[in-house]
């Protein structure tokens, strides 16, 4: 990798100041160090933000829980209260990479992580996402790529936490231009939908501070299928969350990962499910709605039936937990 300087920030203000001159925030480092080693990003200064006070807390609340951006994925995985209040979030955390990685990976880093597209990650291909002329994956090896996109790049979002946060209707609080901005998951990723050069909507210098999760949905679940049984990216992931009242779904939300540059959510499906008593037919109809506009390519069409199965299973699991 290119030589860089290193500094520790002790306040968010100093972190932002330090990062302004071609710096990069360093927390768990899992993604950043890989990108630096492959010369995929360059930074003159790594700003260690692990010492920022108060950002590693998981704080329960009556209506809203707050998870600091520096909380580790393992903290979420092993928090017994999270398991009760947001079971889907615990399940998603437990699927992230390996235990060793979860021990250092942070919530902020998981949300901000870059594309895993193997063309983007290859040191010697200059794809659209790297300012090149074309998306190699579109007519190439696209087994791991998106079924939905708003731009020529088909690299999907792979953050399992983002998928689950979307289903839980969580909000990321981002320090932007000295102010706190509130972005839901659609907002946090929408730029990746439009712009092949983006993998999320963060501007240079933006710092994710925390995530707020409403407790309105007491049922939630997350499931993924990968080629392997552990330590592998999801081929498709699916999270669902809702309140269940008298057998009827209230405020249900479904989100999928690894099939779109953004957590894939279809408002019409959420509305369709609202107030419904779940059965196989309802779950199937919802899955049909969610996948209606899928545009499978040569090697990723299997994701359609796979996503369909996961949506049905996730929804029925919400019901089953009654």
């Amino acid at each position, binding site marked *: 990798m290119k030589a860089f300087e290193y500094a520790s920030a002790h306040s968010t203000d100093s972190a932002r100041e330090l990062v302004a001159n071609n710096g990069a925030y360093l927390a768990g480092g899992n993604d950043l160090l890989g990108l630096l080693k492959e010369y995929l990003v360059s930074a003159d200064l790594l700003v260690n933000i692990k010492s920022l006070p108060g950002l590693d807390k998981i704080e329960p609340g009556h209506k809203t829980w707050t998870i600091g951006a520096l909380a580790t994925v393992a903290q979420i995985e092993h928090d017994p209260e999270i398991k009760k209040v947001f079971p889907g979030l615990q399940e998603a955390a437990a699927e992230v990479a390996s235990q060793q990685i979860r021990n250092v990976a942070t919530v902020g880093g998981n949300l901000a992580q870059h594309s895993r597209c193997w063309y983007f990650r290859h040191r*010697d291909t200059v794809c659209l996402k790297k300012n090149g002329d074309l998306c190699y994956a579109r007519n190439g090896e696209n087994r*791991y790529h998106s079924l939905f996109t708003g731009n020529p790049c088909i690299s999907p979002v792979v953050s399992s936490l983002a998928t689950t946060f979307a289903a839980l209707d969580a909000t990321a609080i981002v320090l932007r231009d000295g102010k706190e901005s509130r972005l839901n998951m659609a907002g946090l990723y929408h730029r990746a939908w439009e712009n092949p050069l983006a993998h999320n909507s963060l501007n240079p210098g933006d710092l994710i501070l925390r995530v707020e999760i409403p407790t309105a949905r007491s049922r939630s679940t997350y499931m993924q299928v990968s080629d392997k049984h552990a330590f592998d990216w999801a081929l498709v992931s699916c999270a669902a969350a809702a309140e269940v009242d008298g057998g009827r779904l209230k405020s249900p939300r479904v989100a999928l990962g690894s099939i779109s540059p953004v957590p894939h959510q279809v408002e019409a499906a959420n509305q369709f499910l609202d107030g419904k008593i779940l059965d196989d037919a309802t779950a199937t109809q919802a899955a049909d709605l969610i996948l209606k506009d899928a545009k499978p390519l040569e090697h990723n069409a299997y994701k359609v039936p796979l996503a369909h199965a996961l949506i049905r299973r996730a929804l029925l699991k919400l019901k089953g937990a009654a």
Partner: protein
Amino acid sequence: MSNWPTETKYISHSTARIDAPAKLTGNARYSSDIQAEGWLYGMIYRSKWPSAKIKSVNLDKALQVPGIKAAVVVRDGEFNVRYYGDEIAAVAGVSKQACLDALRLIEVQADVKHEFVVKENDARKDGSPQVWDGAANTVAPHVRENGTVDAAFGECAAVIEGFYTTPVQIHHPMETHGNTVSWTDDGVTAWSSTQGISSVRDGLAGSLQLDHSKVRVITEYMGGGFGAKFGAGAEGVLAAKLSKAAKAPVRLMLTRFDQALAVGNRPSSFQKIKMGALADGTLHAFEGENYGTAGIGAGGDSGGGGGGADIPMPYLYKVPNSRVKQSAVAVNAGSARAFRAPGNPPASFGMESAMDDLAVKLGMDPLELRQKNDPNPVRQREYALGAEKFGWKEKYKKPGSSPGVVKTGIGCASAAWPAGGGSRRTQGEAQINPDGSVEFRLGVQDIGTGTRTVIAVIAAELLGLKPDQITVKVGDTHYPPGPGSGGSTTCASISPTVFDICTKALQQLQTQTGLADARGDNWFAACKKLGVDPLVVHGQWQQGLSSDHAGGVQFAEVEVDTETGLVTVKKVVAVHDCGLIINCVTLESQINGGVIGGIGYALYEERVMDDLSGVVLNPNFETYKMPGIADVPDIEVILVNMPERGVIGIGEPATVPTAGAIANAVANAIGVRVPSLPITPAKVLAALGKVPPPVNS
């Protein structure tokens, strides 16, 4: 073969690896751990083009990087590169980062050829870009025919046709290829990660034009070879040249990225099989047409060479009428090398899949079809033994009849490995000291299978000592010459050699000390009588203590989720024979490793090439997927001990049948065949007819 003792204390029992403490404490020095005094890092600059003529290489800027001590080009003048990753130059410097910086400053003038081909089926087309100028990528298949095939198909009660494919599998031992090489006026010392210290010594001497006596190769411990680490390799020769130029030892271990490109691989196979049987299940006619790629090492003038794409067909079954056509296809990708049981895992997958498909057509139990057509008496025992342990009869259901969304299935497949015998050139010596300590020295290397322990077990048995009383030295060309660890031959090479050394040592002790039997309780008294001079005894491989041809049968049970396509292997029963078993625990370990490797081949591993850029898209363990602990089922190893056959190796047969057994279990579960490895969720869903067509965008 009866010279081996029949009543044994250690042979055919279990002795923990004598070097386990060294390995577990980190005291074992692997080749990649070596830090010779004043050593430098070495790194290779590789082609970024799949095909190009290199006109010139300018190393000036690289040499100016602080800390860089040497830079060399792989050869003088103009030369061609034929795949992404082909070696062009190398640098040595005081830090890894200095080398990385220097690599980025190497300037190459090249005529880049934009016409190249990386996929087998494209390379076979008329008008395909040629990997080797002026030579077709593939030549007319060679044909082997027995009996009257066309007529025989007409006599069959059932005939199946299938197209079974296997991918290129990359060599990814835990320790990458590489070495530390020190070249001084006195000669060359290479600490190599190799499975053949002698072949590396000879290869380096040849490449560097030195006397064999001027080259010493040392391999104390190494992290796996699997057939790809017999030669010095480009990394050996380049490290030597760098060492000479820098006047310092150079450690050049490949990166995992390098490893995916240029150290060899198992060729792919595309097997079109037509097979028929008589009504009673007797195989009667076989027609097989196979092609695969060994990368640039096929078609035309093969400069890369090594590892052919041919596979044994119709593998281990007896078919009276058969026609086999095989051809290799060149593509712009790294060449093949021997890979644990070369040719056999793809052959087993294709033929065993066809066997099960035929059993379905015949309405026969696939195990019975095998028992009917396998001519090998040892495997006949193994079918019966394995079926009993596995519970085949109770578990077997008609294909696809398992209820529910997650279906279970079982399958079996077999292995035949023609080699596994000993190398006649193997020599060794023992030094017996007056204090009773004893050291065995053999110029063999431990590829990781427990070679030291095998030597200690046999010596302890024959000398009446304990294995931990035997000091074993291997992995140095200064010791008497030993075999390469390939073809499953190591155990059958060294065991008779150690037997010979021990026999001679006991005779010599008797002569020198007058004690009738120096073994066991008499050992220390006998040694004391040696006086001040140790006794050094030389021995060599002897006939009659080893043989070859090992087999095996494996049974697999799987679960297949028919909605997600995920395959989970629940159980593998592996029944194997290898003659006289020396040490059960290390043998079981080798079979476990073979099965796990086979699971990777069945479900996960595949080199993915990109048409447009020509690169390997998965040069890392993120996307070149290998089984992890969560993917490994309960593996039950059943050993068939056959002392009457003498010692035979096991390394290769253990990995041969796993993929075929798993593939058959998947087909048995879901009622349709997934004819292509690896069996991914995508392919399972496709086989089940659940995948919609792509949308043209």
